[in-house]
């Protein structure tokens, strides 16, 4: 991943309408962002749309980026995640997915051999050296967090996915977030 200063420099040039900087920013950030969108949407065409929309938005809003408020990849990832989540929550996709589920039970996407949400969650915990801190978050609770973050599932969708009461899921996610906050904010 490109370093923070380089991305900040590119973003400041994009804010001035520098197209070379815009292309360089895309080259540096798009693969990571596409991975995030793909993980949430699970469909390449949707993920491509989200990535395209996100970069069009970056081109238009680069001047609103504040280096003091957030790092470039944090800002960019938030844009992509929010667009992906909005699209995921959209009625169209819902309808499309339900058709796939009901009629064929499968999509035309190739089998997903990427790590599952829980696997990603574990990898992140290892990379951040917070696995020990997260040990308090057990089985289903950890799975709730992973499904919500990496697949963008809402409380009710998580509840349905893991066949648990929605009230329990809400509590698990809330407590899990509190724990995550403590773990992620502690000094390394």
């Amino acid at each position, binding site marked *: 991943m490109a370093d923070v200063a380089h991305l900040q420099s590119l973003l400041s040039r994009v804010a001035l309408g520098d197209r070379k900087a815009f292309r360089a920013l895309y080259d540096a950030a798009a693969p990571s962002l596409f991975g995030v969108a793909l993980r949430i949407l699970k469909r390449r065409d949707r993920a491509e749309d989200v*990535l*395209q929309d996100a970069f069009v938005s970056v081109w238009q809003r680069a001047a609103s980026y504040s280096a003091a408020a957030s790092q470039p990849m944090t800002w960019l990832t938030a844009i992509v995640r929010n667009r992906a989540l909005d699209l995921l929550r959209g009625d169209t996709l819902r309808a499309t997915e339900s058709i796939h589920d009901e009629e064929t039970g499968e999509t035309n996407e190739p089998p997903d051999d990427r790590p599952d949400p829980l696997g990603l969650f574990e990898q992140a915990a290892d990379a951040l050296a917070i696995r020990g801190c997260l040990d308090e978050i057990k089985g289903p609770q950890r799975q709730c967090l992973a499904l919500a973050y990496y697949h963008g599932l809402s409380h009710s969708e998580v509840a349905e996915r893991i066949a648990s009461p929605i009230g329990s899921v809400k509590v698990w996610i809330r407590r899990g977030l509190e724990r995550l906050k403590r773990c992620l904010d502690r000094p390394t």
Partner: protein
Amino acid sequence: MNYDRADLLDRLAAEYVFGSMTSRARRRFERLRVELPAAESAAREWERRLMPLSQSVPPEAPPPRVWQGIDRRTGGARRAETGWRAWLKPALGFAFGVVATIGLLQVDPGALVPIDDIVQARGTLPQSYVGLLTDAQNNAVLLLSSTRHGRTLSVKRLRPQDEPGHHENEDGQYPVFHQIPGPADAGHCVQFSAARLLNCLPRRAGPQAPPPTRLHSRPGAIAPSGGARTPCRIVCPVLAWRQAPKAFGGHADERFLDPVAEGRRA
């Protein structure tokens, strides 16, 4: 909901950023982010905090069509045509417009600019036809003028003139026009159509006015008998001779118009 409570805002921001909110709740919180700086700040903090979780997602190169779409939507595809190609179309269009305008002004200067303004700007008259109507003694009596493609014939009396009906020119019938050529029309004679000439006649013909049938039967034309400053003869002189002095008001009378008659050379 009491949004003054920091713990509540923090929890909402966490669920928004984490992605577990429903669509409606997301919309509500997005409005809150805009309206409430504390909500925006809390969301930013959770975005920063959870960002490391996204770094475990393996990157994946998007297909080239994604950038092509971005480039197109942000105007890059159009900007790629910078350089002389980008300027070619507007430059050609501008040049064509200039040429067309110059051409139009050459053909008809009064088409775009009032003729008075042209006269003021140039200090001279544009291409014009000027005719002098003389009596039998070759004294100038009337001055007729018009721009080359003008629709108005100006008639100016140069001296008091008796009823000229009894005067005849050397042909025994017609008075004489003398042409003073315009700047680009040297050697050409005045060629007002009868329609234009008659267009200057008074709306109400006087008692001497010939009946319309006579006018139509004798289409007007001014015919040259030589080159520059040579006499031109008017084919329907009686009409012009009798009515022109009364034409200073310049009103038209359709009864006298002859749309088919054009100037012809004698």
